[in-house]
């Protein structure tokens, strides 16, 4: 990429970034312009990519077959793929009041495929987590785990033994799971004081968990802001305009 081309590209990026951040001051036309520009570009790009990277190579070309450089047939066309077109087009009948029931056919096919995968998907995602939650809480060695730095490297990492500190961690983990699960006992009236207290503790633990998740969310948003600052101050002004590396 030539220097001028790169500078123009950086300048457009910097102006667009500033334009989008003007929303912090108040709603304005400058912001709206760049918002629509971004949406338009993303939609246009998606349409082209959908054809060039998916429909053409995985459907159209396979349906028509291909010719070798000498003009002979290289790959046979697979004509049954043409049947997919009317099924896909039925999706657009959603815009017709009279025929919109037809759009349920492709939706039903997609839902059927998706539902069929769900049992396996659920198993793959949650069974390892359930089995991973069965943690031992009885220590088999001393309280503190030795620092791997002080061990003889020839012996390899410390494995097999459960140290007291690890058992304590596991105990906190197991208690947290039980308390949080007890919070979701909605099906019957809980009268036991133990379960009521566990449920209350579960609520508090959930709040702590949500707080941690919120903290990481904020951290991520800050990272995105820092990146934009890096783009404007370092990539655009320092390196792009002032040529300071």
């Amino acid at each position, binding site marked *: 990429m030539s220097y001028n081309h790169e500078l123009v590209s950086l300048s457009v990026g910097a102006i667009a970034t500033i334009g989008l951040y003007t929303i*912090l*001051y108040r709603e304005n036309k400058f912001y709206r312009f760049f918002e629509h520009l971004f949406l338009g570009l*993303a939609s246009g*790009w*998606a349409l082209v*990519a*959908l054809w060039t*990277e*998916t429909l053409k*190579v*995985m459907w159209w*070309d*396979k349906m028509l077959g291909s010719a070798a450089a000498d003009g002979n047939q290289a790959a046979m066309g697979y004509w049954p793929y043409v049947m997919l077109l009317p099924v896909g087009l039925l999706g657009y009948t959603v815009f017709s009041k009279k025929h919109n029931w037809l759009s349920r056919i492709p939706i039903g096919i997609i839902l059927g*495929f*998706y539902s069929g*995968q769900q049992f*396996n*998907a*659920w198993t*793959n*995602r949650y069974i*390892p*987590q359930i*089995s*991973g*939650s069965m943690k031992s809480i009885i220590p088999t060695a001393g309280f503190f*785990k030795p*620092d*791997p*730095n002080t*061990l003889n*490297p020839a012996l*390899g*990492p*410390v494995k097999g033994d459960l140290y007291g500190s690890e058992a304590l961690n596991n105990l906190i983990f197991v208690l947290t799971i039980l308390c949080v699960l007890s919070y979701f006992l909605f099906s019957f009236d809980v009268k036991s004081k133990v379960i009521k207290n566990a449920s209350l503790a579960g609520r508090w633990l959930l709040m702590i*968990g949500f707080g*941690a*998740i919120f903290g*990481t*969310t*904020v*951290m*991520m948003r*800050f*990272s*995105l*802001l*820092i*990146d*934009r*600052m*890096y783009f404007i*101050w*370092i990539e655009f002004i*320092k390196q792009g305009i002032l040529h300071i590396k």
Partner: protein
Amino acid sequence: MAITDPAANKSLGEKLQSVPKPVLYLVLFMLAAIPLFFPVKLPNKPIDASVEMFTNVMALPEGSTVLVESDWTNSTRGESMGEMEALLRILMRKKVKFVVYTIADPQAPQVSRDTIRKIADEEAKAGRYRYKPFEDYLVLGYYPNGEGTASAINNKFVSIVSGKKDWPENSAPRDVSLSPVLKGIKSVADFKYLIVVTASSTTNTVLERITKVPMMFMVTGVMVPETTTYYASGQIKGFCGGVKGVYDLETLMENGLNVEGPNKIVSEKSTEVIPGFPGMQNTGKGMAYYPSLHFALFLLILAVVTGNVGMFLAKRKGA
């Protein structure tokens, strides 16, 4: 009639609760920008998940191949690009081939191509081997319907690459089945790892459907809590989360693991001595953004404390 300034009648508690938003934004922008001009190496102890990911990637033999799912675009450049760059630096220096595909966003393949080219150029400028498209890596492009694609990858990988084309250097697009990168790859199990670099829930999609190859994730900060669950249950073999994850990888690339020296990094995950890449360009966005992130978070904590103190003072005055 004299006009009185309403701010003048405000108590300290009320003033603390009503700091103007533009002032907060201005301070935040300054705190985010100023440290970028003064890069400093902050002390860092990489977390186990980062150490395990580094250990696994560093153990890849030369010439092996990994599958990379790249599901990020410029909207999460602040975290995902640093992760991708760190990963690419290691893969290229270890001469590991890679195949990139996308299921989340049609823009992602082009963003991946740009990032790969940038790191390949950086390596070439430093006098090392320059990765070539089609010869050393493939970008398969975008696949809509992530669920169906993930199932197909797991059950019949060849169906995913069939008909796909990629651009060799200075040449017309060619069928990817002719690329040396896919030599010997018949199933997804032939890849050493599936590494998912993502800013969306595609981690769940692949975790639920791909079972034949071990996985590692590179995720944004907001995804760290749920990804930690997958790591703790052994469903993934390591992960890199947010700017902290990037800085972890960069620290490990710079100092290695269990390598004697003033900056020795140890972990109970491995006692093996793994030298990093001393003297090479190891730091990038992780080191650049980490100090700014600290300052921004400090401002947030200060704002929360100030607001609460203000509320406490205002309530006490009201009582």
